[in-house]
C-alpha cells in the first residue's frame, strides 16, 4: 500500500513544522514516484497544512508531479546548452502533440513530460530522454516520429 511508504517518510519527521514541507514532499515523491491525493492528505495532517496549500506550494516547483509517470516518461532538458539549441520549441511541440503540460500524464497513461534542468548531455543538445534513453539533437519535426515509434512499440508488446 502507498500509505505505508508515505507514513514511513513522515515517521522520520516527528513533530516538525511547515518548514519541512518541501523535503517531505521530495522524499514522498522519491518513494512513490508522484504526489497522490492520499500523500497530500497525510502530509497535510502531519504538518497541519491544508491540502490546497500543499498543492499550491508543490505546483510552484517544477519537480513535483501529481500522477504516476506514463509508460513513456519523457524528460526534456531545459539547461543552457539545450536552450540555446532550441529546446523551448521542442517543449512547445511536445505539449501540443500530447496535449498535456509538463508534470502531467496523458489520459491513456502512455506519455508523461518532465522538464529537467540539465541531464548532462550538453554535447547532444537539444536532448530529450525517454525512459532513460537519450535522443540527441532533436528537431521539432522529429517529435511526432519519435512519439509514433513509442506508440508502435507499445502496441507490439501488448
Amino acid at each position, binding site marked *: 500500500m502507498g500509505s505505508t511508504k508515505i507514513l514511513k517518510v513522515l515517521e522520520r519527521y516527528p513533530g516538525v513544522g511547515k518548514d519541512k514541507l518541501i523535503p517531505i514532499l521530495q522524499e514522498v515523491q522519491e518513494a512513490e514516484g508522484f504526489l497522490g491525493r492520499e500523500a*497530500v492528505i497525510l502530509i497535510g495532517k502531519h504538518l497541519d497544512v491544508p491540502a*490546497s496549500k500543499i498543492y*499550491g506550494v508543490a505546483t510552484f516547483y517544477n519537480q513535483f508531479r501529481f500522477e504516476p509517470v506514463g509508460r513513456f516518461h519523457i524528460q526534456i532538458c531545459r539547461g543552457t546548452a539545450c536552450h540555446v539549441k532550441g529546446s523551448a520549441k521542442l517543449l512547445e511541440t511536445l505539449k501540443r502533440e500530447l496535449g498535456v503540460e509538463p508534470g502531467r500524464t496523458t489520459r491513456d497513461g502512455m506519455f508523461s513530460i518532465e522538464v529537467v534542468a540539465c541531464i548532462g548531455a550538453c554535447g547532444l543538445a537539444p536532448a530529450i530522454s525517454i525512459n532513460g534513453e537519450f535522443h540527441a539533437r532533436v528537431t521539432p519535426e522529429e517529435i511526432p516520429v519519435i512519439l509514433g515509434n513509442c506508440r508502435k512499440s507499445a502496441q507490439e508488446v501488448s
Partner: protein
Amino acid sequence: MRITLNGKTMEAREGETILSAARRMGLNIPTLCHMEGLPPTGACRVCLVEDVKTGRLIPSCSFPVSEGMDIATHSSQVVAARKTIIELLLASHPDDCLYCASNGTCELQKYAQELGVRQRSYSGDRNRIDLDMSSPSIIRDPEKCILCGRCVRVCSEVQGVSAIDFAGRGSNAQVSCAFDEGLNVSSCVNCGQCVMVCPTGALTERRDVDRVLAALDDPKKTVVVQHAPAVSVSLAEEFGIKPGSDVVDKMNAAFRRMGFDKIFPTSFSADLTVMEEAHELVERVKKGGPFPMFTSCSPGWIKYLEEFHPDLLGNVSTCKSPQQMMGAVVKRLWAPAQGLESGQVFNVSVMPCTAKKFEAARPEMGGEVPDVDAVITTRELAEMIRMFGIDITSLEGEQADSPFGDRSSAGKLFGATGGVMEAAARTAYHMITGKELPELKIDAVRGLQDVKEAVVNIDGLELKLAVVSGLGNAGRLLKDIIDGKRTYHFVEVMTCRGGCISGGGQPLVTNPERVKARMQVLYEIDRDASLRVSHENPSIKALYRDFLKEPGSHKSHELLHTEYSPREVLK
C-alpha cells in the same frame, strides 16, 4: 503626527497606513488586494501613491505614515502608473463585461473606466481556463481572476477552511482547489464569502433565477416563496434605499407582481425551529447531555463539522434549518391539505446565503421530491425585481399569506448573530418554568463581537450559552471546548461573521456599517413587536394542534429533524 496629503497637512495616527489616513481625509485611492482588517499583502500595486520628496511610488495600503511625510495621491505619475497596472491586468483578461455576472459591480471594470482605459494597450494571450461549475453554490471562472488573493485569504484567514489557494507560478499561476479539483470535492463549505470579496466576476453564485422563472411560467405549478429574516433588511440597498431599511411589505408586493402564489416568511419556520430546538435542549438538560448542543441552521457550519470535526456531529441539534422546515411543512402538510400533490408545489427560497443552495440539494432534505426546489440569493431576488421592471420604492406594502404568514420577532432575530440563541432561550425558559423570561432582550448575545457568552438562570439552573460567528472564530472556540477550557450547554454557530446579515448571498456592497444597520433594524423590529416569543405565535400553535401534536413528536421527527454523517473531502 503630521503628514501632508496633496498639499494639505493633517494629523495622522502612529502606525496607520497612508491609505487609512487618506481615506479619513476623503481621498479615493483604488485598491484591489487590500482587505479591511487583514494585514496587507501588497500584491496588486494599484494603490500606489507618490512620495513627493523622492518622487518614489509606494503602495499606500502597506506603507505606514511617518512624521513630515509629503504624499501625492493623484499626481500625473501616479495616475499613469495605476492605469498601466490596470491595462496589464486586462492584457490576458476576457473582455466579457456584457455577459459577465459582475457587470456593473466589478472593481476591475470600475477602475478601467475611472482611469480612462478605452482600448487594449497590451495584448497578451487571453486566459483559457475551464469554468468550475461543480458546486451547487459557487461558480469559479478563473479566466477573470486577477490574482488579488482576497478569496484565498477570506477562505483561510477568516473562515479557516482553506479550500482554495494559489497554484502554479508565473503566467500559469491561478487560484485553485487541491489537485485542480472542483469545489464540490474540496472542503469548501459554500459560504460565499469569497464571492463577497472577489473584485471581479471570477467568483459568483450559481444562479437559479431561470429555474424560478420557468416555474412561475408553468400553469401546473403552485409556486410558494419563503424569504429569510435577513433578506428584507438588506434588499433595499440594491435599490439605493438607505441601509437599515426593512422593506418586507414592499417585497411581498413585488413577489405577487412577479406571480408567486403564496408568500410565507422563513421567520415563521424559524419560530418552529425554536420550538423544536428549545425542546431538544430541555430534553438534553433532563438527560444530562450531550453538551454543548450546537445549533444547526447554518449549512456551512454543518458541512464544516462533517469535514473537520465529525466526532462532534452527535452534539449538533437534529433540527433541520428554518429553510428546510418551511419546505417540509409546505410540501408534506400544507400541499395535501390543499388537495395538491407535493410535486405540484414548487418551493422557492430567498436566502442571504449561497450555502443554502447546497443545503436544499442535500439528499437528507426530502430526497426524490426535495423540500425546497430552488434557492435564490438576495442579489438574485433584486435581479428578478429589476427584470420585471418593478419599482420597489413606489409599491404599496402587502402582507404574507396564511396559514404560515405570522411570525414572532424572535424568529426575525435569526437574521443576526445571537438571534437564534435569544429566541431559543426565551422559549426554553418558558418550557421549563411556564413563565416568560423577565427580560426578553438578552444583551449579552447581541452585537457584532466574534464570540459572546451569556448565562441564563432558569429557576436555579444556570444555562451557559455561547454565540460565535465566522468559521475561523468557531474553529478556535471549538478547540477550547474540546480542550475542556470552556464549557457550555448551548452554542450558536453562524458560518458568516455577523450572521446572515452578512451572508454570502447579500448585496455585494456589504461593509461593517451596513451590517450594523441591518442588525439595528432587526433589533428595532423586536423592540416594537407585540409578538416576541415563538411559543405564542398563533400559527405555530395551530400547526402543533392540527398536525404535529407537540415539539419532538413522532411527526415532528419525521418532517423536521435529520442527522448528518462524516464527509470525506480533499482537505
